[in-house]
């Protein structure tokens, strides 16, 4: 591949790629992101390739394995271009029909389409599915269009034109001004204005400066950075090179966790391709600007996502945070100015350069511009990755895009921002989602994790879960974080075991304050957020656990019991047979009784009891009614002949 030495050559190359592509030629795109991979997209891919050959269509139809499309709930996903017919939950057995019907005959296969659960209507095109319709997929949209291992696919969509523009038409100062004007805020957690960070780094003394991509995503349930890096690595790379140019850096790092093998592989491929094309290396686009980038594979520690810890890890030491009283933009990797931004932040930069800061700034709210990708998971119908403009309400995300709560359950809370975030209750569902509003509600944007919880979620248990996570993931260096988390976790565990005491809530609040005030890094300073936000919005649940020894959501095992209502039990033997602890006694025509001593509270009987009987009850905060006497357990049934 010849080097591209000027924007004109880039445009020529792009036209060349497009001229070889017939826009009307059918193209099957298959989501091959991690989630679809897990639901079997590899097997689907193999059968597509095989079937194309078998049905004599080699060369007449294109097949492309793309990155994550976002609608992970319904994967593997196939979109057939140019009509953009979308088929969901595809299995290898569907492929022959897809090829023979849709590709050859141009017929839509009804049963593979999305069915709108409210109207029961079939939806043909991806963009009309409510999950996608209500999104604004600026950064994430190309994921479904391109093969992440093909730079041509990226170039065909105008890839690297922002870099060409920045390097040939703009001075570094102008690039910096544009990003500042766009008011792009860091997508990794804190929401610090990217332009200000760039400027601080640019102005910091020193010839050697670094730019860094933080791809050490670690929040439970969050995978948007992973999907971007896997699905569209060139967009991240292009943003990084533009940033380096603005800052005056000639060396960059992509810090990606080793647990993301596909991201590591695809970004490595992208770097090689960019080097071959001359987008990396010396004299990029003939501008005189040099830049190289290395991939640093992280060894999987949540705390390494904290910028100073990440930089320590790049230096080859244990990823522990260091004080940031002097910003890392001034004193970062090897004490040199280092500008770190998250994957999504970098991937947004080419858009800003191409379309302008004014275009970007008209999206979103006063304080938070542009769009944000969230990973919408938990008790919600449409789990997946969603990109929405800042300022959309939580209700729209969860109901319009997410399709609401499964099984007619009641919404209880949404946890945003990962372990550093908080839980937001129903009364705040109409809140406009942006950096500042989430912080006001006691949570945070974080990197964009969004875990929906329904009425069966215990908020004490949620707080306990996150503190348990943090007790493992804190580096353990400073006392308030390590010891504060240890003690808070102990208290929460006790409360969930029914051993909570009067004053525990106040003690949690006091520990939270000290952990927040005195910890060394952001992990510790935000560690108490899950505790504080659940106490703030769900204090009554804490009190029920402590005072009444009752778990209102029936989650905390120590506080619940299973009981069979003798009035309702039909002695059907189903629960009795399934009980793994052998705790249920009874027999044919003999009302079943749970031995509370033997019961492990696994809930199998509760699940097994046929809904038409509904005899197994969960109870909490009240004594289990004593079992009815043996002699009263016989059920006298009328024999069938007498009916």
């Amino acid at each position, binding site marked *: 591949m010849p080097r591209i030495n000027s924007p004109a050559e880039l445009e020529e190359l792009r036209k060349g790629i497009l001229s070889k592509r017939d826009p009307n030629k059918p193209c099957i795109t298959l989501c091959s992101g991690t989630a679809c991979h897990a639901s079997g997209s590899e097997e689907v891919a193999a059968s597509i390739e095989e079937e194309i050959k078998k049905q004599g269509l080699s060369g007449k139809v294109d097949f492309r394995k793309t990155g994550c499309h976002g609608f992970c709930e319904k994967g593997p996903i196939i979109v057939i271009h140019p009509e953009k017919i979308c088929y969901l939950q595809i299995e290898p057995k569907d492929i022959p029909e897809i090829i023979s019907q849709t590709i050859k005959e141009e017929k839509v296969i009804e049963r593979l389409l999305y069915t709108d659960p409210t109207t029961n209507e079939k939806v043909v095109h991806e963009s009309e599915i409510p999950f996608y319709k209500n999104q604004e997929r600026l950064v994430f949209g190309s994921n479904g269009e391109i093969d992440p291992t093909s730079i041509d696919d990226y170039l065909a969509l105008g890839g690297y034109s922002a870099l060409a523009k920045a390097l040939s038409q703009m001075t570094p100062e102008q690039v910096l001004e544009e990003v500042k004007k766009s008011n792009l805020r860091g997508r990794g957690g804190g929401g610090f204005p990217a332009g200000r960070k760039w400027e601080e780094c640019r102005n910091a003394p020193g010839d050697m400066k670094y730019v860094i991509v933080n791809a050490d995503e670690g929040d439970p349930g969050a995978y948007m950075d992973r999907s971007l890096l896997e699905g569209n690595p060139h967009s991240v790379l292009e943003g990084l090179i533009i940033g380096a140019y603005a800052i005056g850096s000639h060396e960059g790092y992509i810090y990606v966790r080793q647990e993301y093998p596909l991201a590591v592989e695809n970004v490595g491929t992208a770097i090689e391709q960019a080097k071959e094309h001359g987008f990396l290396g010396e004299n990029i686009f003939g501008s005189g600007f040099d830049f190289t980038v290395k991939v640093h594979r992280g060894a999987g*520690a949540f*705390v390494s996502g904290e910028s100073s810890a990440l930089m320590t890890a790049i230096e080859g030491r*244990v990823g522990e945070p*260091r*004080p940031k*009283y*002097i910003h890392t933009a001034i004193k970062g990797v090897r004490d040199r100015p280092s500008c770190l931004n998250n994957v999504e932040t970098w991937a947004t930069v080419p858009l800003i350069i191409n379309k302008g800061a004014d275009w970007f700034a008209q999206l979103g709210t006063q304080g938070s511009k542009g769009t944000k990708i969230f990973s919408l998971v938990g008790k919600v119908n449409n789990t997946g990755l969603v990109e929405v403009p800042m300022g959309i309400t939580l209700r729209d995300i969860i109901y319009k895009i997410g399709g609401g709560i499964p099984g007619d359950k009641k919404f209880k809370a949404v946890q945003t921002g990962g372990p550093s975030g908080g839980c937001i209750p129903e009364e705040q569902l109409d809140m406009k989602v942006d950096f500042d509003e989430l912080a006001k509600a006691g949570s945070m944007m974080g990197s964009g994790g969004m875990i929906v919880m329904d009425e069966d979620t215990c908020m004490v248990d949620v707080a306990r879960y996150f503190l348990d996570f*943090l*007790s*493992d*993931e*804190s*580096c*353990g*260096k*400073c*006392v*308030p974080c*390590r*010891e*504060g*988390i*240890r*003690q808070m*976790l*102990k208290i929460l565990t006790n409360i969930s075991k029914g051993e909570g005491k009067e004053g525990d809530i106040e003690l949690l609040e*006091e*520990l939270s304050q*000290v952990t927040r*005030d*005195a*910890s*060394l890094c952001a992990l510790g300073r935000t560690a108490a957020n899950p505790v504080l936000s659940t106490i703030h919005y769900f204090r009554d649940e804490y009190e029920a656990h402590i005072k009444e020894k009752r778990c209102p959501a029936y989650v905390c095992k120590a506080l619940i019991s299973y009981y069979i209502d003798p009035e309702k039990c039909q002695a059907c033997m189903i629960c009795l047979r399934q009980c793994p602890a052998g705790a249920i006694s009874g027999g044919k025509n003999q009302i079943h009784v749970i031995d509370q001593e033997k019961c492990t509270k696994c809930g199998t009987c509760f699940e097994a009891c046929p809904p038409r009987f509904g005899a197994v009850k969960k109870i909490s905060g009240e004594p289990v009614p004593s079992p009815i006497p043996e002699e009263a357990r016989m059920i006298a049934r009328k024999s069938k002949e007498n009916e």
Partner: protein
Amino acid sequence: MSEITLQIDGREVKAEEGMTILEAAQSAGIFIPTLCHHEKLEPYGACRICTVEIEARGRTNLVAACLYPIEQNLVVRTRSERVDKTRKVLLELMLAHAPDAAELQDLAQEYGANKARFEKESSFCILCGLCVRYCAEVKKKNAIGFVDRGTRREVIFIPEIASKECEDCKECFPLCPTEALQATYLLTKALMSPSSPSASESE
């Protein structure tokens, strides 16, 4: 180095640029308690007992005095209700591990910390890292280090190095604020040569 004027506890203090609050305070004879600090070692900022309140750029904040670089017109309060309360809780958290450490007890008295507030979990070590850092930075031997992370973090001697280096050094022992170190060493030594009873008796 240019001179910087700041205010500590209402007193005007002149100090050199590049100094930390702790250094500036010490140079003016103002006491700030420390546990993980040592003048021969790089500032570490782990015990947070040197937390002070500052006013800078119109905001009040708590910072670690051993790390925070001074700036012109900085206002520092080494004691305040918020500082004292923070130090009290920090001490209580550490006392759960080392309830009998003299240094902690003295501070506990000063700040009204209750050593029985949190359930005892005696590891005897508060993970100040003085031993680890002294061995690495001053002796350059790395015979002792941290293992694991989070609430499972602990200090251990690396037997292969410790067996060669520690017998004639032991300079880290007096640095330990809780006297846990000596016990850790003895334990390691005993484990290294379980057959020789003199290993533990000779100390």
